[in-house]
């Protein structure tokens, strides 16, 4: 395969590095160092570091993007004085938070208090790692990537609730409970919407799902599922109008009330990684991933890293849509949120599954002359 993939690139880097490091060691060690296992190990490490770095930089750019967009929605400018157009603002924020005192309230549970932000962060980054972003950037091309991503995505309430309970604060506890209830409630419609996509594409592998969208993107036939998925994602991501766990007006800062410094930065970054992951999932499942429609001139799709570029443009635009919603809607209440989830979203999602099945059936009808696109 001639294309450079992320893993082959990190492999090359590892081999290159090891070959040079090997200079300074005597022969037996040298031989071991340049052997395949070590190269593979180092390559995995580099692979991980690249993913981590990419997720962090993307996250920070996402925060910048949200602040600038939100500023324009609000008739103001947003961060603009630190770095060009405020690009360095979030790096400053991050560095500052890492340097600040990190302390645990005296009555908080030590293990839970320290563990939950770390675990929340790790799981969020892992999802980013396994999602394909282009044909080359393909972390875990497992047959069931989609399921794996959603499973890890739903770990979050556990850690949030753990952290909220451990901080021994009433606001945090209420926020954690709301968060858990809300995330669990919206798993169902999200999964049903995903089932619609799976029915249409016939695979749980995200790469296959993207490739299945070469003729048409799935948002058109599965518009209902897209709506359900977007709503569910808003709820899973705890953004306005569903940001009840962090509802500032009643619960100070929600479940991270007692967190400060680095741990707060972990929560914040992990949140934005989740926003990124949510946007990426929307792009993968409904907006054709890294592909562009065929009528787009090939000059736009043939430059290096074009796949990643267009994918990120789509993901940031989707996130811009989330920001738009945040700028214009109020927060709703827990009971209304749950009612919306169970009474509206689940039936809609079921309906969209039926629609997807109908579309597949239409494909199979020889009358229409379409080729069934099952398999993969």
């Amino acid at each position, binding site marked *: 395969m001639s294309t450079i993939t992320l*893993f082959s690139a990190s492999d090359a880097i590892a*081999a290159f590095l090891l070959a040079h490091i090997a*200079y300074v060691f005597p022969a037996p060690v040298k031989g071991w160092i340049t052997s395949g296992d070590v190269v593979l190990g180092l390559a995995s490490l580099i692979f991980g570091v690249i993913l981590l770095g990419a997720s962090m930089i993307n996250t920070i750019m996402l925060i910048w993007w949200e602040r600038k967009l939100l500023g324009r929605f609000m008739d103001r400018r947003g961060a603009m004085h630190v770095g060009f157009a405020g690009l360095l603002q979030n790096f*400053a924020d991050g560095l*500052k938070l890492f*340097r*600040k005192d990190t302390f645990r309230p005296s009555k908080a549970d030590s293990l839970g208090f320290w563990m939950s932000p770390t675990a929340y962060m790790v799981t969020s980054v892992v999802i980013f790692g396994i999602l394909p972003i282009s044909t080359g950037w393909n972390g875990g*091309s497992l047959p069931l990537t989609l399921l794996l991503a959603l499973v890890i995505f739903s770990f979050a309430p556990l850690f949030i609730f753990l952290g909220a309970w451990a901080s021994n604060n009433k606001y945090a506890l209420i926020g954690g409970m709301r968060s858990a209830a809300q995330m669990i409630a919206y798993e169902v419609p999200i999964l049903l919407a995903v089932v619609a996509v799976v029915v249409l594409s016939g695979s749980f592998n995200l790469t296959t799902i993207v490739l299945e969208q070469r003729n048409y993107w799935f948002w058109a036939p599965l518009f209902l599922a897209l709506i359900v998925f977007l709503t569910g994602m808003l709820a899973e991501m705890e953004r306005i109008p569903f940001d009840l766990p962090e509802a500032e007006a009643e619960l100070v*800062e929600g479940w991270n009330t007692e967190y400060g410094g680095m741990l707060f930065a972990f929560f914040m970054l992990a949140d934005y990684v989740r926003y990124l992951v949510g946007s990426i999932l929307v792009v993968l499942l409904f907006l054709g991933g890294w592909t562009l429609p065929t009528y787009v001139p090939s000059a736009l799709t043939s430059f290096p890293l074009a796949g990643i570029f267009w994918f990120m443009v789509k993901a940031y635009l989707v996130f811009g849509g989330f920001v738009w919603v945040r700028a214009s809607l109020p927060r709703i209440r827990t009971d209304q949120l749950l009612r919306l989830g169970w009474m509206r979203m689940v039936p809609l999602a079921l309906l969209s599954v039926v629609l997807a099945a109908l579309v597949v059936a239409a494909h199979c009808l020889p009358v229409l002359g379409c080729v069934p696109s099952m398999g993969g």
Partner: protein
Amino acid sequence: MSGQTPLPAKVPPASAGPSAAIADMPLEVIGQPGVPFVEIETLRAREFIPAAKEALTSLLKEQANGKLIRPVFNWAGRNSLFPLHWGLACCAIEFAAAFGARWDAERFGVVPRSSPRQCDLLIVNGTVTWKVAHKLIALYEQMPEPKWAIAMGNCATGGGPFRTAYSVVPGVDKLIPVDVYIAGCPPRPENLLDGILRLEQLIKERGA
């Protein structure tokens, strides 16, 4: 797919060492049994290790002098001041106006947070009474280091028009250390921004 991509069998010695002999030698030969250990590599190692050591020492020295990482953190700290979202009295309205569309304090990275754990700037925007004084101190103590305090307006600075009253603390500097005072009753939002810029200057000079 990429996950199953086999290891590249041969890595071409694209940019090899300085020695021509080494550069010409195929890479996998080095370190194979039977190939003699080349003296020049040892020399390179001997050169490399003290050089690396020296570089590391100088780095550590610079770090100890506060020239390496501290300026970066200082830059970060002064450019992202999170004030506590707390309105005391009249100045709180101008405090809010400073975050409104016209002045937009977020341009400087000033974002109010509601929880003192996540803040590093306490803007005392209004009259402090004895009844709330201990709560103010508690909030200040809940903020993690490094932290700063701004006394915004006359009431926080010196009690203002109410300093003769029985219930008012005549100046918040009696309770917590104040870094910057802002005059005005209430100060214009520009004045608040000016105070924040002045605090940034102070952090830059004083280091923190």
